[in-house]
């Protein structure tokens, strides 16, 4: 039987009716149409379902939907820069052509955001380690790391101005 779920998604309060066995990825995609949340391996290995829950990167495919009660969820659809345009990470991914097919991109950007929020000074090695749980089957990792380094520098400059 469906149950009520109250949560915030991308800054907006949502009330949904979900089956107790649904996971968060399915709920975000099918109830809210947020197709930037991808379901890849569905067992936590590939990282493409990553969303930000209360500021932390989480695998939404392993996260029971009802566990999201009262939580704050950020998906790629809700990510934006301070001026309402693209977030520096999104712009950097474009500038560095850090995607080919794009399937892993939303989760790459969100995971990188969680890292830079936690550690604005992250080194290249720290970026590689943090993103090691996100697979890119086009193997475009070099450009992805370059994009995150660039976004890191621009975000540091932005916060200084």
């Amino acid at each position, binding site marked *: 039987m469906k*149950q009520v779920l109250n949560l915030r998604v991308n800054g907006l309060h949502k009330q949904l009716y979900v*089956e*107790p*066995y649904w*996971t968060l990825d399915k709920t975000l995609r099918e109830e809210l149409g947020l197709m930037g949340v991808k379901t890849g391996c*569905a*067992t*936590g290995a590939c*990282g493409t379902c*990553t969303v930000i829950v209360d500021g*932390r*990167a*989480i*695998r939404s*495919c*392993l*996260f*029971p939907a*009802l*566990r999201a009660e009262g939580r704050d969820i950020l998906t790629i659809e809700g990510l934006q820069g301070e001026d309402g345009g693209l977030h520096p990470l999104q712009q950097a991914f474009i500038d560095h052509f850090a995607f080919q097919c794009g399937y892993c991109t939303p989760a790459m950007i969100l*995971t990188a955001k*969680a*890292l830079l929020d936690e550690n604005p000074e992250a080194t290249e090695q720290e970026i590689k380690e*943090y993103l*090691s*749980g*996100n697979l890119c089957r086009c193997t475009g990792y070099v450009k992805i790391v370059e994009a995150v380094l660039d976004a890191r520098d621009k975000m540091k400059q932005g916060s200084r101005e």
Partner: protein
Amino acid sequence: MKFEYLVPRTVAEAIGLLRQYGGQAKVIAGGTDLMSGMRQKLTRLRGVKYLVDIANISGLGSLREEQGQLGIGALATLRTLERSPLMREKCSLVAQAASQVGSVAIRNAATLGGNLCQETKCLHYAGIYRWGPAPCYHGGGAVCYAVSGAGSCQAMATNELAPALICLDAEARVAGSDGERIIPMEDFFIEPGDTSLAANEILTEVKFSSPSSGRRVAYLKHTYMGIPGIAVVGVAAVLVVDGVICQDARIAFIGGSTKPLRAHKAEEVLRGDRLSDAVISRCGEVAAREAHPVSDGRASAQYRRSMVKVLTRRVITQAAADRGIQG
């Protein structure tokens, strides 16, 4: 995958639910192990109709230090253990082991309790070689697809926090219908994927004496091709060194036997001796002889045994160079 989702607010309420629903109920903490197992329809999880979410029980995730004892709540996430100033300062061994599990997003959810109570990661039960016509021993059948002719489940232990906790002489606090009991970490594991927890018991905390000054620690893990993932072998060591003589040692490993194992004989090699290259080398060889590995698709028995030797050597060398806790 269908289940009812139950959210108890107290340990007593959770135990009541486990008793009420018996084998149809399963505890969910971080969910990284259980949910992927449910998704893969693992044989042991097919009858699960109720998930008992213990994440909302207050106090089960806290880290505390009281009267010389460190306590880690069963719900503490591995990311918390990795970053906690208390753990990094007082017990870097636990922080080191936690930091090497999975990826950040997994460690943000995965808990200490879940790591200790995890399902076996044997590729013939829960992985790509799951092709057998009948369930294996682990799924209640009478065959092992990893080791032909074996009389029981031969899955190698992969509980990455276990070697560190065994080396720290940790104890598990377990709550059940009849109150609380304490289980030494070495006795906590029984068979692959099985702990000494009864069906209606919950692991609430792991505690151990706050490491004293001069204790030196290290944990090393080896994975398939060296990429982040499930441990092929992991070895932890705690050394007490007085001047140049090793007074006491604890060595424990995973990946070399069906449960996390303490290497008693290898420890004996170090006790009362200088930590010379020759002694460390002999210690590794003895540890390798204490392992009973099998070939299971993730690594061959011979390779696992060799890696127990190599990692034991490296972990002792690294621990010997550890500054230990100052003061």
